[in-house]
Each structure stands twice: as C-alpha cells, then as structure tokens.
C-alpha cells in the first residue's frame, strides 16, 4: 500500500505541474455545463413566420399580432399569395406559414369558430412539431375550439418533477454526467499511453511493483478528480441554473465513487491496446461518441429499438445520466436506484478486471 501512495503522490505532482491540466479540470466542467445547458435545449424561439392573410380583418390582424408577441415567432414576411409564401419556405427564408382564409372573421362571428392553416418545414421534425404545438396554443387562445359534446371525455394533464417544463433542469444533470465520464476516461487512457511513449513505463516494469499497485496508483488520482469535478458541476448547476437537488447529495457522491471506476477502467483498457496517444484518442472517441449519443441525454433511451436498448446495457454513461436525473430531479433514494447502483458496481469490477488481465509488465 505504501508503494501505491508513492505512485499517487507522483501522479498528483505531475497533474498540478502540468500547466494545461488544472485549467482543463476546473474550467472545462464549468464552461461546458453552462454552454451546453443554454445551447443544447429543446426550447425554440424566434421561428420565422410567413403570413398569408386573405381576410385582412381586425380579427385576423390581431391573430398575427399575437404570434409576433408570443416570443416564439417573428413575423418575417406578409405574403400576398400562398405561392409566394411557399417559395419563402422552400428557400428557408421562413420556418412556417400561417394562412388565414377569407371570411375568417365573418365565420367566427356567425358560427363561433373558424379555421386557419399552418404549414411547417419538417426537415427537422422536432422543430416542426414544437412550432406547430406553439402555434396551436396561440390560435386556441384566440379562437376557442368547438366545445366538447355532452358526455365526451376531457383530458387534463400535469407535468410532474419538472412542472414548468424547464429544459435546463432536464439537461444540466445529464450533461454533468457526460462531462465527468468523458474527461476521466480520456485522462486515464492518455496518461498511461504517454508513459509508454516517453519510455518511463519500462523503468516501472523492471521494478518488482505489482500490477494492482500500478493500476491503483494510476486510478486513485483520477478517481478523486472525478469527485472534485462533480462538486464543481453541482455548484454551477445550483448557482446558475437553480437545478433542484431533491435527492440526498451524499448518495450522488457515493454513486460517483462507484461509477468512476467504469470510465477509469475503460481508459486503462484502451491504453493497454494503444501504442500512441493518437491511437488512444481515436479509440476513446469511438466509444465515447456512441456512449454519449445513446446515453439518453438528447433522445430518450427508452424509445430506442429493442436491439439498441440491449446494446445500451453496456453503456456506462447511460446509467450515470439516468441516476443523476432520478436523484436530483425526482429525489430518488437508494431503494429506487439499487439496480442501477449494483449494475455500475459490477461493470466497474469487470472492466478493471479486464484491464488488469490485459496489462502486461512484459511483452
């Protein structure tokens, strides 16, 4: 154990002496959490609206004004014909078209209801869906829909755990999980491969040092760094985004402690097969891109095809993101995340076992 402490001391000396390392460890989680949480959200604003108003009545003008005042839309152009509006949509000048038919006001006064048509550019289906959703809400606030017939069903709904549908609340815990996973995996892989490149690992390999001592000496420092990054990330999330922290923070740290070895072990495993830092980076990226895209940060992991969900059971980042949301946003306790916890614990043990098994003191 004393040997391991000497190795840990050496790693920390090197980390703190590297002028690039410390800023990366401290600044990167802050910048990325802030940047990604503001930028990567599903709220859409300033959609460009093309209007074709065939009615030109006070009421149709008021409807158009409502769109402009909503904050979601900007009335980019009022066209005289639907052909003109279509052309604008085709050349991406506008995102959607609001067409108000003739006699819109008259129909509304006579019959109590009237229709408008909305055409959206659905190349990005998420954007189009949201745009139509917003438009619908605005139109309905002006023109009440037909009253439900007697005996009809009415649906009421409420959004739990994130009542105001705030996307930052949803994104921040997940992004934090992704950043920590990514950084510690890279650091471990690069650190070990660097020693191989420089040649210092050869000197270590002629010493009677045990494999587990060497590995533990490499992993412990980055393990601690993961905890520090989690602390910084949570502080940023709370100070800037006011993300709720319903769960027990001790559980968050305990979980980070158990989760970190998964990514550290993967980094170690990669380093055993990479001969240069370049190879290590490409290999690590290959896995991390898959992990990040499939972890449920951007698209719900539960709605992926079944085979992908099976594959995703090997994705450690998925468990971390899932955990962060459950505990921070829903206030889940240990009982609710038990399965996740033990899966990650096993995962870490297996990956590190593999890393230890494939690490060769001689070739």
């Amino acid at each position, binding site marked *: 154990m004393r040997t391991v402490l*000497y*190795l840990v001391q*050496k790693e920390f000396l*090197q980390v703190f002496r590297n002028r690039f390392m410390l800023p990366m460890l401290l600044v990167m989680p802050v910048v990325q959490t802030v940047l990604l949480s503001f930028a990567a959200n599903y709220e859409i604003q300033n959609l460009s609206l093309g209007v074709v108003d065939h009615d030109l009545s006070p009421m149709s003008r008021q409807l158009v004004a409502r769109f402009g005042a909503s904050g979601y839309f900007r009335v980019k152009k009022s066209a005289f014909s639907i052909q003109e509006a279509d052309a604008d949509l085709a050349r991406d000048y506008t995102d959607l078209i609001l067409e108000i038919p003739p006699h819109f006001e008259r129909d509304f006064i006579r019959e109590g209801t009237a229709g408008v048509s909305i055409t959206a550019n659905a190349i990005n289906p998420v954007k189009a869906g949201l745009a139509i959703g917003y438009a619908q809400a605005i139109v309905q606030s002006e023109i009440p829909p037909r009253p439900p017939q007697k005996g009809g069903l009415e649906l009421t709904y409420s959004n739990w755990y994130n009542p105001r549908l705030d996307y930052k609340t949803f994104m921040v815990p997940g992004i934090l999980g992704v950043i920590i996973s990514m950084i510690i995996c890279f650091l471990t892989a690069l650190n070990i491969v660097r020693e191989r490149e420089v*040649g210092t690992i*050869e000197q270590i*390999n002629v010493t009677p040092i045990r494999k587990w001592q060497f590995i533990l000496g490499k992993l412990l420092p980055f393990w601690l760094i993961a905890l520090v990054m989690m602390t910084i990330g949570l502080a940023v999330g709370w100070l800037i985004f006011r993300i709720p922290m319903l769960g027990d923070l001790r559980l968050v740290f305990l979980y980070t402690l158990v989760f970190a070895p998964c990514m550290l072990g993967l980094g170690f495993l990669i380093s055993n097969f990479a001969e240069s830092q370049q190879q290590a980076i490409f290999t690590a990226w290959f896995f991390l891109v898959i992990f990040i895209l499939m972890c449920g940060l951007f698209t719900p992991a539960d709605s992926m095809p079944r085979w992908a969900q099976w594959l995703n059971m090997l994705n450690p980042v998925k468990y971390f993101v899932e955990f962060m949301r459950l505990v921070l946003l829903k206030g889940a306790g240990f009982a609710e995340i038990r399965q996740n916890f033990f899966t990650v614990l096993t995962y870490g043990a297996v990956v590190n076992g593999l890393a230890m098994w494939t690490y060769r*003191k*001689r070739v």
Partner: protein
Amino acid sequence: MDYVIQTEQLTKRFGTFTAVNAISFAVTRGEVFGFLGANGAGKTTALKMLTGLLTPSSGRATVAGFDVWRQPEAVKRRIGYMSQRFSLYEDLTVRENIRLYGGIYGLKRAAIRVKTADLLERLDIGAYADQLVAGLPLGWRQKLAFSVALLHEPRIVFLDEPTSGVDPLTRRQFWDLIYEAAHAGVTLMITTHYMDEAEYCDRVSIMVDGKIEALDTPRNMKAAFGAEDMDEVFRLLARATATND
C-alpha cells in the same frame, strides 16, 4: 565459480526474425561485462530478456540465482536497470524522482532521506535537487539515472547504452561511477557501441546478427586477432562473419 548471470541457448524470435540466436554465457560476481555489437545486433533484446521485460522464445536464463521466466519478481527485486531511453520522470524534480523509486522498491522513509542526501552529495548536484529533471544537462541526467538504478542496492545492474550522446569527459566520469559500483561488489552488464569503452570492461562479448561471435577479456581478444585496439577487433570480426555467410 559464483555466477550471477547465466544463460543457455537464450533465443528471441519476432515472427520469422531471430533477434537473439541461442546465446550462452556466464557472468561472475563483481564483473564489468560488456555487450558489444552494431545497432540491431540484438544487444538490447538480450538485455530486455534478462531484466524480465521480454519473454524468451526458448532457452534458459538465471539472474541472481532466479529463473527470469519463472521468478521474474524475485529477479526484479535484485536488479537495477538503466534503459537506452532516458527513464526518469522529466516533470519531477531530482529529489522527487529519487523518492519515487526509493518508495517503489520499498525503502523506508528515513532510508530514502539518507540515500537522497548521499546521492546528491556524491554526484555534487545538491544545487539542482529541487529542479525539474528536464532542465538538467544530458550527462548529469545519465549519472542521476544510474545512481537511481543503484538506489535499492541491487546485486546486478543492467545498463543499455548508458553513454550514447554524452561528451567524452562525462563518459569518463560515468565510468568512474561504474568502477565504484563494481568495487562494491555489484555486477554490471553494459551494452555499448563505443569500442574504447570496451577496453574498460573486464570481459566483453561481441554480438553479430543475434549471435555471440567472440567472448573474452579485451587483452586476449586483441591478442587473438592481432589487433591494436578493440575497434580493430570489431572490424576484423565483422569482416570474418560477413565472408562466412
């Protein structure tokens, strides 16, 4: 005889290429044993097998009485190694490097302190103790690396081209350190391609294409070849093996 290194038909193949071809030799305690040969003759490969960095393809070798293949950890506790590439951590200071290797070999804290002070004084680099190794001149670094390899008082030290790229004066000083260690009973095995250094060795073996072509004291070797110096011996030998092929 008290042999500390013994090999029998030690061989290393990489695919179809035989880097070390059935070499057999024995080194006695306190001997300075030179391993000579052109680049690519198999010197480094042989050394790596003896230090447990490479697995032999066939043959046997014992170092300090232990089998390198079956008891590598026992061997590693008793040997020091200084590789061709500079192997100390450049982003650690002189003192930190000494402490690290002392710690790895299980030296007690107090022992590390004493050894550090002693080493700094002997190399006369006390002024640089807290400077990064990266900033030291090459010759000093090599001397430091050798001293660190001796830190845990190994019985045998392997040196792989320790003086390449070092100026003649520093090389001379380096050899003083080697003799000092040999007098203290340490066995040293050195690879080099400087033929003048071969004269400093008690015995030398000359490797050509993975095989040991000659093994004797420098004096006997010169006599056998009727040569002025080791450089001439080497050239005559290289020519002889080329015509044999």
